[in-house]
C-alpha cells in the first residue's frame, strides 16, 4: 500500500448524494480474480455513451481532471454493496482521496485498507467546495493527514476525523493484517478459553 502523508490536487466534482458502489463499479466488472484493470469500469454506467465511447461531459473524461487525485462527492458516498472493487477501481484510476459529508461504513473500511482516504467534512465546508466547483473548473485543495487538515481553495483550513489506528497504517503504508498476525497468541488463547 502506498503511504499517504500529504496530497495536493485539483478537485474532481461528482456531486451526487448516495453514490452507491454499483455506480462506482458495476457488477459486470466483478468477475475478475485479481485487483488490476478495474479502472476501466470506474463509474462506467455514467462514463460511457450508449455506443461505448467516453461521454466528453463526464468529469473523469475531461482533460482538466486527467491527473486529478481528489474526488468531491455528495452525502453518503459508497453505500450499498461491500465490493472492495470500488476502492480498487478508484485507486486504479488515480484517485487517492474522496471528500464527502459522510461515507458508508463498509466503503470507508475498504478505502482505508487501500490507501484511499475518506475525508469527512461538515455541511458548511462541503458547501464551500461545491460552490467553488461550480464557479472554477480546476480548484485545488490540499490534504495533510498528519494534522488531519484539508485546505480549501480559499486558503481556509478545516480538520477531518480519522481513527488513530487507520491513520498510522495509512501514513506508514502498512497492511492492518500485520497487527492481527502479531496477536496470534491472544487469538489462540481466546479460542482455548471456551468463550464460544
Amino acid at each position: 500500500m502506498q503511504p499517504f502523508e500529504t496530497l495536493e490536487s485539483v478537485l474532481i466534482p461528482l456531486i451526487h448524494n448516495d453514490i452507491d458502489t454499483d455506480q462506482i463499479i458495476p457488477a459486470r466488472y466483478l468477475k475478475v480474480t485479481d485487483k488490476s484493470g478495474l479502472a476501466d469500469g470506474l463509474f462506467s454506467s455514467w462514463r460511457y455513451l450508449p455506443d461505448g465511447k467516453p461521454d466528453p461531459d463526464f468529469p473523469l473524461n475531461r482533460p482538466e481532471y486527467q491527473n486529478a487525485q481528489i474526488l468531491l462527492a455528495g452525502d453518503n458516498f459508497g453505500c450499498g454493496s461491500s465490493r472492495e472493487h470500488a476502492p480498487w477501481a478508484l485507486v486504479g484510476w488515480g484517485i487517492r482521496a474522496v471528500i464527502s459529508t459522510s461515507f458508508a461504513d463498509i466503503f470507508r473500511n475498504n478505502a482505508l485498507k487501500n490507501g484511499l482516504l475518506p475525508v469527512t467534512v461538515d455541511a458548511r465546508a462541503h458547501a464551500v467546495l461545491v460552490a467553488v466547483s461550480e464557479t472554477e473548473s480546476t480548484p485545488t485543495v490540499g490534504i495533510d493527514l498528519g494534522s488531519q487538515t484539508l485546505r480549501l481553495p480559499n486558503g481556509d483550513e478545516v480538520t477531518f476525523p480519522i481513527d488513530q489506528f487507520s491513520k498510522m497504517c495509512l501514513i506508514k503504508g502498512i497492511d492492518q493484517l500485520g497487527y492481527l498476525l502479531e496477536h496470534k497468541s491472544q487469538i489462540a488463547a481466546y479460542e482455548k478459553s471456551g468463550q464460544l
Partner: protein
Amino acid sequence: MPKPKTLFEKVWDSHVVLHEPNSPAILYIDKHLIHEVTSPQAFSGLREKGLRVRRPDRTVATMDHSTPTIALSLDLIDEMGKKQLQQLETNCREFGVPLYDMQNPQRGIVHVMVPELGLTQPGMTIVCGDSHTSTHGAFGALAFGIGTSEVEHVLATQSLLQHKPKTMRVEFNGQLPNGVTAKDMILALIAKIGVGGGTGYVIEYTGPALRALNMDARMTICNMTIEAGARAGMIAPDDVTFEYLAGREFAPQGEAWDAAIAYWQTLPSDPGAAFDKTISLDVAAFEPMITYGTNPGMGAPIHQPIPAPQDEPDPAKRAALQKALRYMDLDHGESLDGHPVDVVFIGSCTNSRLSDLRAAAAILEDQKVADGVHLLVVPGTETIRRQAEAEGLDQIFKQAGGDWRYAGCSMCLAMNGDQLEPGQYAASTSNRNFESRQGKDGRTFLVSPLTAAATAISGQITDPRTLMK
C-alpha cells in the same frame, strides 16, 4: 447490579479478543461465509504471504452470484464467470474449506443456505464479503458484510479489527394488516430514515409486530438493514428462533441443544439497557410499499403520489430526486399503482425463501401472467426448490406462464445473464433499485412477493390486497 446490556453488547463483549488503547478491537469471528466474487483476491493474498486458513472448520463456501439458473452447469456462463467459479473450487480444495458446489443438492444463495443448514445460531459473530450478511442477525447473531481485505484477515486469523458501532432500537408496534409483509415493514423504515440513516449503528428490531413474524420474514427485515446504512440488524432469539433451528443439520443436538438454549435465552437485551437512538413505528397503518427512485430509501405506499422535486427544500436531495425520476422516466404527482412492467422477479436473499414462494403462489394460483410480462421465479437454495416442487408451487408458477429456475442470486445483481434490457421496468422482490443494478439501464421497483405476484398477473403495479381471497 451489573449495567444492563443490549443484545448487541452481549455478543460484542463475548467476542472481543483484545482491545488496546488507540486501536480497534480484535473481534473473534465464529462463522466466515465465502462466495466466488469477493474471495479470489483474499486467497491470493494468503498465497503471497505464505499463510493458511486458520479455521477451515469455521468457514463455509458456496457458489451463488454468477451461477446459471437454467441448468446446474458452469458451461452455461461466460468465460470470466466460469473462471472465477473454478478459482473458488481450487481455493477451497487447496485451503480445506468446505464448498457447496453446483452439484451439491443443498447449494444456494449464501444468506439463505447458511441459516437453512442450521449454521447460523444466536450469539455468534458471522461475516461474509457481502453486504447482505446482515440477514443472519435475525437469529440474534452479530452479522455484517466485509470487504475482501477483511476476508483475507478472517481467513488468516479468524479475527477482524473493528470499532464498536452505536446502537439503534427500532420498535414495530401494532398488528400488520393483511396483504402487508415484512418487506413492506423494512421498506417503510428505510423510506423514513433514508439510505444513510443507519450509518454507524447496529439496529435491534423489537416490538409485538416483529415478534409475530416467522424466521423467513425476520430474515427479510435484517437482510435489508444494510439498505438503511446500518451494517447489522439483530433480533433477540425466542421460541420462533429455537423452533426454526431444532433438528437442522448443524444445529446442536441432545445435551448440547439444551445447553445452547440456556445460553441463547440469556442474549435478549436486559430491561433498561440503553440504546443511542430509538425509533417507534406503528405497523397497523402500513400499506404495501414500492420504490419509485434509484435507491431503497426512495419508497412510498403503493397508492401515494411520487413526491415532487420542487417540494424538497434541500438542494442536494432535490437534485437526487430529479436525477432518479429522470432515470426511471417517471413523473411526480401520480402513484405507481397501474404502472406497466416488463419483468417480475421473485427471488434474491431478501425474498426467495419457501414462505415467500408460498405467498406469491397463493396469488398466482389458477391465474395467468399478463401478455408480454416475463415472470422469473428463482428459489434461494436447491433445498427450497425441491420443497417448493414437492408442494406443487413450481406447477403454479409454470401454469401461470412463469419461468421456474434453479437457485442463485440471478437478477438481483444480474451477474449470471438473468438481466433487464435497457429501459425495461421490473417489479422485483430483491433489495436494490440502484441504476443499472438489474441490467444496464434497467429500472427497478422494489416490492414484496405479494405485490410482485399481483403485478405479474395484471402486467402493471397492483396492490395485492385487490386479489387476495
